[in-house]
């Protein structure tokens, strides 16, 4: 049985459908990658899984529990077992790097301060930022902030982690380290990971399972190998990064020429 | 940790400052102190008219405050006001023929009861009645009388 089962998910922002019937399974102990063009709703999907947004139709079950039927307290219990790396990092800006990573531990455990210190230094060491522990979030670069956020997301040793674009803004060296880290965390702790990313190569390297989303639906699903050999136009375009094809680079709406003509007509 | 401690100390000082301010308002500004007067003894005085006198107005003797008005009620038989005075126990040597009048402090000031000591040998006790009273001056009446006497004088 999969850890997360998403069935017939519909979600609207105003009148705009972000999801029109998505079915998705995420298996325990696996790294599942979710890919798709910018603005398809990958971040939205993670927020739906975390119970921060309510679907308009359909259900999301984690470990057999329907996330959106849970009571407040139960939802918070469940979230203790989930880690999430936000696209923006979402570090608390008025406390230091160290305190940020220590935050979930201090909130949810009664561990003595000395043990918290050891744990935090361990997590920071893993992301290569142990010596940045006294910096404030405002003093970090975007990539560093993301790594601190990663250290924080794993500080409670959750059963699953959702990474929202973990590789963006990382140099090749830390990128390589992060790829290894995510893989290692997944294997050593038997964690379930969901990785949202645009970075094909890295995603291919760590994912067991890949979902391609576009236009509110799952377009393709498979292992890295099957996707690479897929005959679908859409998948090819996405995998090879071609500007023309079934996926439009542009936000949906009127065509460029129509728009130009219209503005002339208005004059 | 050090920063946390100094935060706690300043917050503590802030709370103390606020409570001191409240204490100051209660003790120095309001009549709380005069509420907790030393338990005194009560005497009653009957006035034809009390004007603007209120419960808790001061009672003075030779300008010195020696008590306060406890209550004012209407006597339905005599149609006059029954004023109960609470006098401090330390002024227990008021002669029984002491007189009580209602005065106004300044032109617009508050009204208070002024006592004038008499000459009797015996002293007022709890529950006694002050016989000699002079009602409050009601400004309209005074002016009315003044105008009346003026008019009368002209004739």
């Amino acid at each position, binding site marked *: 049985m999969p850890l997360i089962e998403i069935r017939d998910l519909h979600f609207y922002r105003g009148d705009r459908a972000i999801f029109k019937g998505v079915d998705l399974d995420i298996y325990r102990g696996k790294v599942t990658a979710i890919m798709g063009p910018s603005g398809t709703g990958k971040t939205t999907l993670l927020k739906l899984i975390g119970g921060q947004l309510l679907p308009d139709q359909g259900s999301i079950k984690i470990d057999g529990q329907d996330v959106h039927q849970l009571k407040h307290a139960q939802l918070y219990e469940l979230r203790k077992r*989930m880690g999430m790396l936000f696209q923006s990092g979402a570090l608390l800006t008025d406390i230091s790097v160290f305190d940020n990573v220590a935050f*979930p531990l201090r909130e949810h455990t009664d561990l003595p301060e000395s043990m918290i210190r050891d744990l935090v230094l361990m997590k920071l060491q893993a992301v290569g930022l142990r010596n940045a522990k006294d910096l404030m979030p405002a003093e970090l670069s975007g990539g560093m902030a993301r790594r601190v956020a990663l250290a924080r997301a794993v500080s409670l040793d959750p059963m699953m982690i959702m990474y929202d674009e973990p590789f963006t803004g990382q140099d090749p060296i830390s990128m390589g380290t992060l790829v290894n880290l995510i893989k290692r965390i997944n294997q050593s702790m038997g964690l379930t990971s969901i990785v949202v990313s645009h970075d094909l190569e890295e995603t291919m390297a760590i994912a067991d399972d890949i979902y391609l989303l576009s236009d509110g639906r799952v377009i393709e699903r498979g292992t890295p190998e099957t996707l690479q050999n897929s005959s679908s136009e859409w998948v090819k375009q996405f995998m090879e990064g071609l500007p023309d094809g079934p996926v439009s680079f542009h936000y949906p709406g009127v065509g460029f020429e129509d728009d130009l003509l219209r503005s002339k007509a208005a004059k | 940790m050090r920063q946390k401690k100094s935060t706690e100390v300043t917050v503590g000082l802030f709370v103390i400052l606020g409570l001191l301010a409240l204490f100051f308002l209660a003790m120095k500004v*309001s009549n709380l102190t005069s509420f907790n007067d030393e338990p005194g003894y009560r005497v009653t005085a009957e006035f034809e008219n009390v004007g603007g006198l209120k419960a808790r107005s001061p009672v003075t003797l030779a300008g010195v*405050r020696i008590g306060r008005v406890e209550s004012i009620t209407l006597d339905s038989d005599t149609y006059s006001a029954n004023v109960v005075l609470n006098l401090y126990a330390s002024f227990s040597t008021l002669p029984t023929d002491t007189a009580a009048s209602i005065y106004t402090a300044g032109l617009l000031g*508050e009204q208070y009861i002024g006592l004038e000591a008499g000459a009797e040998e015996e002293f007022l006790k709890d529950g006694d009645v002050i016989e000699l009273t002079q009602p409050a001056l009601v400004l309209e009446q005074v002016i009315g009388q003044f105008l009346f006497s003026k008019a009368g004088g002209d004739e």
Partner: protein
Amino acid sequence: MDGIQRLGRWAIGTSERLGRGYLFLMAILAGVPSTLMRFSLVIQQLYSVGVLSVFLILISGLFVGMVLGLQGYYTLVDFGAEESLGVMVALSLVRELGPVVSALLFAGRAGSALTAEIGLMKSTEQLSGMEMMAVDPIRRIITPRFLAGFISLPLLAAIFSAVGIIGGYIVGYGLLGVDDGAFWTQMQTKTDLYADIMNGVIKSVVFGFVVTWIALFEGHDAIPTSEGVGRATTRTVVHSAFAILSLDFVLTALMFGEV
């Protein structure tokens, strides 16, 4: 037609906001017991909401009291009633100016800061991040600030009134030569602990509740952009001022109406 439609939209929008504000308040209050268990969070906020406002309150209170002393003296001296200066200063401060002016200053100093802080935390996904760390931002962030505001304002208002009365005394006795004894005794006989001082305190408790609620709600409800947060901050000050002044009228009518 257009005007009517706009009015309708405004009315719908406003009642939706009121509804959200009410639900938000209920959520805050539901968090009070657990926040009381972790009072250190409230103490931190008492520092930024209360302590940092003390200086402003002290200075403003002193000057307002001194001005009252001057103005009161020139009015009263014409009636030969300058001895009542103490009463006038004390009653104006304790009943009205203390609670109202300190609430207005509090809205400008602490309320706007609260809105900006919460709004920024929302726009940088810090609140959302906390939710995902299974930390309820209402309980961890909002309720401690609410309690701090609610506790701070009555204390600040008391400080304001006390300093103001001292300011009035400095001007009346020190500068204008009003009789020392008359200033205090008249004040003491005419100022009632319950009717005046306690009612003033009740006013500032109500203002503290409302101003902090507005400030936190505006921050939490802000559109998460820099412009949105800026607007929310302005709204906090404007709505707080409206709320303070209109509630002051209602409370005054209720408390001092029947003489």
